[in-house]
């Protein structure tokens, strides 16, 4: 694997850790980060040794304060920018990871930062975390799936309120809206994420992946299709156990 500059990728005892690592820039998401994440996520996808993933941000102040806007005005024409988006479909790849991904969020979780967290399956936040989507104030809309993933997690009305008015949420508000699963004191954030990862790791990887698939893919189906998917995945697991 090539050397990463703006993320840290570590693997230990079946848990993969991705750390966004531009602390001086509040871990702002830039093109380099996109390319490195794309590579790390691709490695995780193909690595059966990785059973759970933890995504976190380096430094004291932020998980990720959003996209690096200094790169925004250098974009090529919309046509080429769109082409590049789908050639390196980072968010499609992120959402297609079969292993559970836990986001450990602290400090600023803004714009692309929230959107990355929304690509994860379980979100833990420290009590100092702040959440916001500033896009419409900049004359743009989210581009990392936020307009789709946010309403699917917190509902249409809360998502429209957050996105249209640009208001930020504190950690307790985020918990109330179910944007995050749990709030923890800052010092307990990573230990708790690891504890959760260990718990998930203790289960059969096939069952874990089947559950993730049933829940996430099932949400895009009619109820009867979803029940059919659940049955199919369940049958696959029973067959595995018999072997």
């Amino acid at each position, binding site marked *: 694997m090539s050397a990463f500059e703006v993320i840290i990728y570590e693997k230990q005892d079946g848990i993969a850790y991705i750390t966004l690592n531009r602390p001086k820039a509040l871990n702002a998401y830039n093109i380099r980060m996109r390319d490195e994440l794309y590579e790390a996520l691709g490695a995780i996808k193909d690595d059966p040794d990785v059973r759970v993933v933890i995504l976190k941000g380096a430094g004291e102040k932020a998980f990720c304060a959003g996209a690096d*806007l*200094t790169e*925004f*005005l250098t*974009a090529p*024409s*919309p*046509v080429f*920018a*769109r082409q590049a*988006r*789908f050639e390196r479909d980072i*968010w*499609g790849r992120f*959402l297609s990871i079969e292993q559970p991904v836990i986001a450990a969020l602290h400090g600023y979780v803004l714009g692309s930062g929230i959107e990355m967290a929304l690509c994860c399956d379980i979100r833990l936040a420290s009590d100092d975390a702040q959440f916001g989507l500033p*896009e*419409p*104030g*900049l*004359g*743009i*809309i*989210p*581009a990392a*799936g*936020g*307009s*789709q*993933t*946010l*309403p*699917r997690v917190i*509902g*249409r*009305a*809360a*998502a*429209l*309120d957050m*996105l*249209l*008015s*640009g*208001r930020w949420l504190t950690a307790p508000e985020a918990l109330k809206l179910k944007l995050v699963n749990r709030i923890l004191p800052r010092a307990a954030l990573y230990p708790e994420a690891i504890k959760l990862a260990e718990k998930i790791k203790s289960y059969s990887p096939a069952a874990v992946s089947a559950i993730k698939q049933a829940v996430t893919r099932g*949400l*895009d189906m009619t109820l009867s299709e979803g029940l059919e998917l659940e049955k199919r995945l369940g049958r696959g697991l029973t067959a595995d156990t018999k072997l």
Partner: protein
Amino acid sequence: MPYHTVIYAVKNHIAGITLNRPKTGNAVNLKMAQELQEVSRLINGDNDIYVVTLTGAGDAFCSGGDKEEVEPCHPAAAIAAIDRPVIAAINGDALGEGLEIALACDIRVAATKARFGLPQLTGGRIPADGGTQRLPRIIGKGKASELLMTAETINAEEALEIGLVSRVVPPESLAEESRKLAETIAAKGPIALRYLKEAINKGMDMTLEQGLRLEADLYFLLHTTSDRTEGIKSYLEKRKPDYKGK
């Protein structure tokens, strides 16, 4: 005033609609539904309007359908067709068709005294202006079934608890609060706002994969606007953006 059942006024890119049949609790009749449809068309054709607020004159927001009216009315459909962000400032009771209108808005702010319910079932009817579809999409199937099947009325506090409204304020500050909210929204990029509404509302009816494609397409379409350049430049230059809607 060209309208009989609604008041319509535009100021500083904010369009205000007031349901105006206060003697009947702003009950919806065919005339009001038609006038809302006209206003809706007017707004969609006017690029200078960035955000819309909707409220009721007098004590009620809207008490439901007019008992005297025999024609089917679809006021909520007219409001849902507006492609700008719509804030419902729910000053009082939002019942039956009244709640269906509020559900067709994007953000709901309510006065503490407002009550909410879809009582159609008690008259042997079901909601016919989107209530059975929009309510579960906003508050979830379990709570929506309870409200619809009991036909009971809830107060503002309960409405906040279940996510039916996103904010509750004292009646005397509702107008001020909703105006402030409208101004906050109107200060954003107007085209981005419109696309955002489209991405969320249309995207929620698609699979995630289709929704992500819609988002990306709208995102790159925004690259062609001068507002996008202004938004990013103003941020980098640490000043307020001056959006033109172009």
